[in-house]
């Protein structure tokens, strides 16, 4: 890594920190501006009880003071505070619990998407305009255009109810199969199309023709030259793909009742569980920022021709 690359990386990291800080600040104040509070229920508690709880959790202090206390706790002690709704549990524990499931879901879905999408795209490119290419293109077009809540519901009806081969509930390991597939189909289709067009592009390049002319074997051309070079756009897609999977899991986790961070995030907002809203927002924001950062840096490492500035 030369000094220019290092400078670039440092600059990006700094920018990432600023991004996360902006997210924290905006979320904090918007969240408190929303009407309703964490101690509100169909059956109201007395004003004295409410005051006692607010004092206990420091919600009686001025908002700006709460904001700085929160920032200080996060930065100095990495302390996300206690959940206001699930009394007795710390936000960090709830997030860690949800993260275990969501990460499993996301990583498997991402691997599945890449492992299926790349070969499919390559096959389609090599078999351009043949039947198999057309079939792949039609199917991937369908997957790309279908939102995950429709895909999820269809899979649910078919595999969990009609055939009854997989459970509908995502809380058991077997139950994760359907949400993973739901989550993987869109990026898989996208990667297939990306690989196909980029491979077609590469296959038309002069150096491929040169290799062919020099008598290099077909296998070596495809694996050694074409596929490798056509993967560059796919790598850059990993950042956005992760963002898709993270946000997509908000919906998919709801459909399949997967106990992940996406569901925790949604319910924390409904519950006005302030520390929980902040905690999940920060974790998701950091995740997306870091992934985009990595994919940008990776991009540079894979293709030295790319100019960072």
């Amino acid at each position, binding site marked *: 890594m030369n000094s220019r690359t290092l400078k670039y990386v440092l600059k990006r990291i700094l920018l990432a920190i600023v991004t996360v800080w902006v997210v924290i600040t905006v979320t904090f104040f918007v969240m408190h501006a929303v009407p309703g509070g964490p101690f509100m229920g169909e059956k109201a508690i007395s004003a004295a009880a409410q005051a006692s709880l607010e004092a206990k959790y420091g919600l009686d202090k001025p908002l700006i003071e709460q904001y700085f206390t929160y920032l200080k706790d996060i930065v100095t002690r990495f302390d996300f505070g206690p959940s206001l709704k699930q009394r007795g549990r710390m936000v960090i524990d709830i997030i860690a619990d949800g993260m275990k499931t969501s990460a499993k879901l996301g990583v498997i879905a991402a691997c599945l998407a890449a492992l299926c999408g790349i070969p499919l795209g390559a096959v389609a490119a090599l078999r351009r305009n043949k039947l198999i290419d057309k079939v792949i293109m039609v199917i991937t077009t369908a997957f790309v255009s279908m939102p995950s809540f429709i895909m999820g519901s269809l899979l649910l009806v078919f595999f969990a109810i009609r055939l009854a081969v997989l459970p509908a509930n995502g809380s058991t*390991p077997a139950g994760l199969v359907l949400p*993973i597939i739901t989550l993987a189909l869109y990026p898989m289709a996208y990667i297939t199309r990306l690989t196909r067009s980029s491979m077609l592009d590469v296959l038309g390049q002069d150096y491929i023709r040169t290799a062919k002319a020099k008598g290099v074997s077909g296998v070596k051309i495809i694996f050694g030259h074409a596929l490798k070079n056509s993967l560059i756009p796919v790598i850059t897609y990993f950042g956005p793909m992760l963002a898709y999977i993270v946000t997509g899991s908000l919906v998919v986790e709801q459909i399949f009742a997967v106990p992940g961070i996406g569901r925790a995030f949604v319910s924390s907002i409904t519950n006005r569980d302030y520390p929980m809203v902040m905690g999940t927002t920060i974790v998701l924001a950091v995740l997306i920022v870091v992934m985009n950062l990595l994919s940008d840096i990776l991009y540079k490492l894979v293709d030295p021709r790319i100019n960072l500035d």
Partner: protein
Amino acid sequence: MKKYLALVLALAMAFSLAACGGNSAPTAPAATQAVEEATGSSIAVCLASEPDTLDPALNSAVDGATMLVHLFSGLAKWEQNESGALVIVPDAAEELVEGVENEDGTVTYTYTLREGMKWSDGKDVTAADFAYAWQRAASVDLAADYGYMFEVIDGYDDVWAEEPVEGAALNVKAVDDRTLEVTLANAVSYWNELLAFPTYFPVREDVVSNESWATDPKTYVCNGAYTITGWDHNSLITLEKNPNYVDADEILMDQIQVYLSDDANNMLTNFKNGEWQLIDDVPTNEIAALKEAYPDEFVVAGQIGTYYVCWNVNEEILPAGSGLEGAEAENARAEIRNAISLLFDRNYIVEDIAQGGQVPASSFVAMGMTNPDGSQFYKTAGSSEEFDGYYNVSPDALEDNFAQCVEVLKKYYDYDEATGMFSGFPTLTYLYNTSEGHKAIGEYLQSALAGVGITMNLENQEWATFLNTRKNGDYSIARNGWLADYNDPICFLDMWTTASGNNDVQFGKGAHKDVAVYSLDLTDLGYDVAVENGTWADTYDVLIKTIKGCTDNEVRYELMHRAEDLLMSTGCICPLYFYTDIYMLDDSVSGFFSNPLGYKYFMYCTTAA
């Protein structure tokens, strides 16, 4: 060559698919195995999503209460007797004793705990554990949702006094290890029922001193029929029979798996494919089909609660330039609101919209509440001999009701005989929390009002926002509902006092504070209370206070009927139906029962293989 390559790629793809599947597939048999390994019987149920808490003092949810009645043993419990009726019987107490009245009117109960009761970690259950648990649950420090459940106990008012009282505490103490003495401010008829309520369950001081004790099976110490052996947050809570439980021999179900999900569609799928034996919710749009397809497994049980529409008492509904002011105006508004209550076809609402076997309501105190003689409170509400409650909600009365409503409205608004429409009624906005079911009902109400020329817009808000708006009175007319915490009508009535946090109607607040149109005469019942044209605080608040201090049960119920009469006379409450509890129970399960508060009992269940 190319063909060969394509084949290789295709194979690679197939392999990768198999590899991915392999990541998650093998775990499935492991899960099944775990269930099989547990010796004996097991039932899988789904009540709701992750409970907010399983601390008996903090819990205020029905699903949490269902788990708590399996985990803890209070002084009393609900049980199904041989004839199938639900009764309250002693549990940790040897017997449910009668109270002894003291000179100052307070009543003292002395309970003896059963011998041999143990906590799940093997330590003895003592009277001091009960005394500690009650003090804790009622404390300002804990500020529990249901802390007010202890308001009947002497000393509660001191605990919550605005000015701190030295040494304030509930009047409950452990005389020795097995004797608990508690003094109530005055006798209450539902005391035994309170003893069976989870908020009254014992906890041990050294256990709960760890603030997160109730979130982890390792630190969860209880004294009931089951213990928590597994808690996969947001996913599954496993309850297993507690070998230390004093009546362990009587418990038939060895293991209860409580799946955590709040998605009705998801619950139904799992019920249909046989994975879960009981689900506590079903998708509303499936109800009709389910009733048909599962006549024996689709259960509609009673639940003590009322679905109603509430008006903001301070909302101006008189036409501009009506010339009415003060008391006259309020009387007119009450008459109009009551007339509008007659417009709605409650049978249509329950049969075509809600579809869950709900019962059309014509009074606020819900079906299921009983008078001292055992008869239904709602059947003796109102003054009419011909029908129950405050208006006739039978399908035959619909036309009469409509005509009556039109007659009243004619007094205040311009009426066009040709079209049958009124003009001059200010536009209303119906506020409800976002939900398909509430929306459908809102649309029906809207169309019924449009039928007489009244425009009502619909506005939905997300739950927490909605609660806030309604509580602050920033609405004209809103959806509302109330479920009882115990079988006594007072829990439907004391919520409407001026200072109550649930006074969504805003009685006695804002402009209504000075409105003096209410009358109350209790001299015939031996009270020195006679108010003519008083304010809400002069009448209703006084009446509720009188009820709370009343020790004669007959008189007390008469007072409660009068309170409901006064409440309903305002027209601010428009009951639509009494709630039911819908659930689905697999027909292989026997020995199941649920109580009127919706708690479900699985300990005596058996499943046919």
